[in-house]
């Protein structure tokens, strides 16, 4: 079921969707979006690419093992929660930098946490779908 049109479209769509997913993640704290939605968009982009060009190529493009992605995401989320402990605050207290970073806006531990969520959603979804397609 390889289709030339799909293959060509996927090649264009992947970077656009991927950028969109990052955009959703970053703006999620203020407007609709966030780690869950962003992760799902990114996953959809790679799955689309995988269907068009084969999972092998999609994996190669991703470079990282999907399960590592999932693990890194979990650790990142956990770390963002543990960070305040070093400052004597309670687990998962939100810490923010005073000055906003250009483009990304204000940075703080909740943003790191949301990035962790993004990676877990991306990793888990791709683990499921890639392996199913290959099976």
């Amino acid at each position: 079921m390889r289709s030339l049109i799909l293959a060509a479209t996927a090649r264009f769509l992947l970077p656009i969707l991927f950028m969109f997913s990052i955009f959703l993640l970053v703006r999620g704290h203020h407007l609709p979006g966030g780690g869950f939605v962003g992760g799902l968009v990114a996953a959809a982009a790679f799955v689309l690419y995988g269907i068009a060009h084969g999972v092998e190529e999609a994996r190669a493009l991703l470079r990282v093992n999907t399960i590592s992605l999932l693990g890194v995401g979990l650790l990142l989320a956990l770390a963002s929660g543990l960070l305040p402990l070093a400052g004597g605050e309670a687990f998962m207290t939100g810490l923010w930098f005073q000055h906003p970073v250009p483009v990304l806006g204000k940075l703080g531990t909740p943003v790191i946490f949301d990035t962790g969520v993004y990676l877990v959603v991306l990793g888990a979804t791709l683990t499921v779908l890639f392996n199913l397609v290959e099976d």
Partner: protein
Amino acid sequence: MEILLAFLIGGLYAAGFYLVLGRSIGKLIVGLVLLGQAANLLIFTAGGLTRAHPPIVPEGALEAQPPFADPIPQALILTAIVIGFGVLAFALVLVDRTFQRVGTYDTDDMTSTDA
């Protein structure tokens, strides 16, 4: 609108339960998905409906101006949707594996734990 949604939720639940009670394991999964949708809608509706006012603090304001939709059910449902997807994937693969091992598609034939 609440009454209409209440009947939609009831209908989805009824359809889901009927499928779960059936013999086909594939339909059972379909039933689980319907039950999940129904449950999400139930939480959403029970929290109270507000048309077209997302719970977002407008630029320049200090807090959201009522009326705005209740954010708590939304936060609950958002994770439920994603987890529901993960669990559905697991259930589907489990069914697939079961079918390959047991060679049956019929829950009435799966009455013991030994494959």
